[in-house]
């Protein structure tokens, strides 16, 4: 059984388009995250979200917005895609505990290529 799943696995699109990436977790976790991994494999947090609080990395352009229809889902919407948005996007989830005590479980990633 897949714990954290993402769709699609691959996404190729034109510059200027709007796209969404879906994430679902069946672990019963309260907190979900989006990370971006660039071409140099550097992994950076984008958002942390639970039903109470959204924490945003201030370096993330406001073209990116997380949307959560329910506790098990956190989708990532991207407007007006740019070439620099090409990356692998990872979703993760955790059951919140004290900082440093919780384990995040990652999805398989969505490889986005903007042409």
């Amino acid at each position, binding site marked *: 059984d897949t714990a954290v799943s993402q769709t699609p696995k691959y996404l190729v699109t034109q510059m200027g388009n709007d796209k969404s990436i879906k994430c679902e977790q069946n672990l019963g976790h309260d907190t979900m995250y989006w990370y971006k991994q660039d071409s140099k494999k550097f992994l950076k947090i984008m958002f942390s979200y639970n039903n109470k609080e959204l924490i945003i990395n201030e370096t993330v352009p406001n073209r990116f917005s997380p949307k959560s229809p329910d506790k098990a889902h956190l989708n990532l919407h991207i407007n007006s895609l740019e070439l620099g948005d090409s990356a692998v996007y990872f979703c993760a989830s955790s059951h919140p505990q004290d900082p440093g*005590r919780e384990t995040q479980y*990652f999805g398989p990633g969505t490889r986005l290529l903007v042409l």
Partner: protein
Amino acid sequence: SQELEQSPQSLIVQEGKNLTINCTSSKTLYGLYWYKQKYGEGLIFLMMLQKGGEEKSHEKITAKLDEKKQQSSLHITASQPSHAGIYLCGAAGLYNNAGNMLTFGGGTRLMVKP
């Protein structure tokens, strides 16, 4: 600036050899996580360290956190081709003091030659 530094950036070892990957933080860590990423795939959780001086092992992989909680090492004994991948250390609490958001190091790319 990157707050978690990993070294080396890449490593090629002969099968059967031991190796060590280091992760250094500019700040005291709430918790230090080690993940492995197979090429083109997602991240697999390996271990989490919290206490200064803590050491954990899983199969042939041992991770340690120093007493000051600013440096961690990952040691692989008798490496195998299955150990190949990208090893990432992640730290909680570094980003804007938001405890549950992980900051990752740049990764160490490991290749094991048969």
